[in-house]
């Protein structure tokens, strides 16, 4: 096991109250594996990732839990240890390449300093390696473009540069936070292609945080579904896609148009909004939005993650396999707003959820 996250709680102490952004999350990433983390905006995916690098902004704090990387507890590292850990053992690629690169520093230097910050590469080694990395992420005329500034790069090129930066130290784990969201559709496809390829070539573990189910399907071996700061379902990608057990997972998947499937059903969107994390609803946190809700969901304490199939766990009283046919049908028929439907039609690799 490369990374083991145990009962992680990350909370934000705001004037409105304590926001339980990550609320008891436990999962692991194996070496070389690609793990997908999915869920709507605000479900705690990004905070989980930032917690791993201890990049939680004020007034947030990891309040309890352990993050073991190769057996070392990240939460207990000294400032210098965590600094050397970042980018070296675990690297992160951010969502928006437009704003994630320093506008007044040359692309080459930004990649170079990611290496020189750690012991492994000296300046003399790092400099030529930048060009090599840029070539690897398919940046044309890499030799001359290292000297360019971010504004001279297109959005896709910038994301390639970000990826090059992430890979520069050959980290054991690469966290990619919505790497394609901010890009336009054709570029998205290119980046996905690139990531697939790199994934094969490098054999590094990857944690892919995304809305994009298509991306998950094509890259990941395992999926974690998060809702309201908690894991609601986890399992091998095939199993989750074919037989989602949590209604939330089911809803997420229903909202993705499938290219391989004849379109008989209407797409489903999840009604309502994710809950306010200072005051989450009692019982199952998904119950106000769940099409299959039963009284038990409202009253009883939140269910535990229970094994529903080999390697697949889910947190639900009902489980999809127990859901009655007619309620599934009803859920399928439930209204999807016209705009959302239009939007989804235009975008083949569309995202899920409201966001």
């Amino acid at each position, binding site marked *: 096991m490369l990374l083991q996250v145990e009962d992680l709680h990350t909370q934000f102490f705001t004037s409105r109250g304590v926001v339980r952004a990550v609320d008891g999350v436990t999962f692991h990433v194996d070496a070389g594996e690609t793990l997908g983390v999915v869920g709507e905006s605000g479900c705690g995916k990004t905070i989980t990732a930032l917690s791993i690098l201890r990049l939680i902004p004020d007034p947030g704090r990891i309040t309890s839990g352990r993050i073991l990387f190769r057996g070392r507890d990240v939460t207990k590292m000294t400032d210098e240890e965590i600094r050397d850990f*970042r980018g070296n053992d675990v*690297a*992160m690629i951010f969502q928006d390449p437009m704003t994630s690169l320093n*506008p*007044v520093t040359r692309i080459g230097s930004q990649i170079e*300093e*990611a290496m020189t910050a750690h012991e492994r590469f000296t300046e003399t080694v790092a400099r030529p390696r930048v060009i090599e990395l840029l070539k690897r992420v398919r940046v044309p005329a890499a030799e001359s473009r290292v000297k360019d500034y971010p*504004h*001279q790069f297109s959005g896709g090129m910038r994301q390639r540069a970000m990826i090059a930066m992430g890979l520069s130290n050959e980290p054991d784990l690469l966290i990619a936070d919505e790497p394609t969201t901010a890009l336009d559709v054709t570029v998205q496809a290119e980046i996905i292609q690139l990531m697939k390829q790199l994934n094969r070539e490098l054999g590094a573990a990857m944690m892919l945080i995304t809305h994009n189910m298509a991306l998950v399907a094509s890259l990941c071996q395992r999926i974690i579904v998060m809702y309201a700061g908690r894991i609601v379902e986890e399992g091998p990608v095939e199993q989750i896609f074919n037989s989602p057990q949590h209604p939330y997972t089911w809803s997420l998947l229903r909202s993705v148009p499938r290219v391989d499937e004849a379109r008989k059903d209407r797409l489903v969107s999840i009604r309502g909004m994710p809950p306010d994390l200072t005051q989450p609803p009692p019982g199952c946190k998904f119950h106000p939005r769940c099409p299959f809700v039963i009284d038990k969901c409202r009253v009883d304490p939140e269910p535990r993650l229970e094994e529903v199939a080999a390697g697949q766990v889910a947190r639900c009283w009902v489980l999809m396999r127990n859901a009655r046919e007619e309620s599934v049908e009803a859920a399928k028929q439930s209204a999807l707003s016209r705009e959302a439907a239009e939007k989804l039609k235009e975008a083949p690799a569309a995202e899920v959820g409201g966001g």
Partner: protein
Amino acid sequence: MAVIAGRPKRGALLPVGLTRLTESRAGSLAFYVVRRVLWMIPVVFFVIVITFVLMHSAQGSPWDKAGGRQLSDVVIRNLNEKYGLNKPVFEQFFLYIWNVLHFDFGLSYQYQGKTVVELIGGGWPYTATIGVLAFLLIVPVGVGLGILAALRQNTRVDYATMGFATFAASFPNFVIGALMVVFFSVLMYKWTGGDFFLPAGGWGVDDHLIMPAVTLALLPIAYTARLTRASTLETIRQDYIRTAWAKGLPERLVVIRHVLKNSLIPVVTTLGPTFAFLVTGSVIVETVFTIPGIGRAFVVAVTSRDYPMILGTTVLFSVVIAVANLVVDVLYVFIDPRVRLS
């Protein structure tokens, strides 16, 4: 002028080296600077026009006295004859322009027999010395305090800096100057029996410079500190700062290479005018500390309607300001690659 060029059009046909050459920074920079310097001619011309018009519309003649016996009409007539003020205003104007083209800025009305060039040349070194000294204080202290306050946001350091900035801005510098004189000169003299104190004014390239330079610098320091703080706080929130942390850069490098490089851009914009303001003199500091500079000379020239002196000083100001702004614009290119000169 500084404009942003579109994304560089990298000609597919041109070899990379050649493309670089046509975009050669040094070449375009020199061209740009020459153009801007040429632009100073119309700027100075319009400054002269405006000043000339204002000057001649202001009430009171150079020969009116603040009190006591006034000059007789005969004397005034002869003085007007002596200084050419009896000529039509248009003729005076063109004569002035003609003389300026020959670097002749005329004779002061107030200081008999002294040329404006002599008076400004005599006074400016004092003003500029204090101004440059103040500027040397502003950049490290103002910027430093601003960064410190932003990095230690909501701590005592931050509050102290903000408090200082507030009070430096709300006590005008003559009050601050006078209070400093009370403390560092009068009281220190009393307490130490005259062994240690700062001189309460006057010129000298020694401890005489301390209080005037600090007094002059105080408000710009406060302003620069606040501006730097605000700008740094904006920058710290940017995504690329998180990227820098995520790379594992040490704090020092995050601050210097990523935060400051961005947050100082708006600060530099204001440093140019600040510099111009400082080296053109502050009436108040020069009066409180009796510095024989041109800041005071200008105000005296205005209040005594010393026309050639007013014009000469204004021309100097406009050139200093234009040069300071030019320097800032050129500097801009170096600190913000998004901005290009054309």
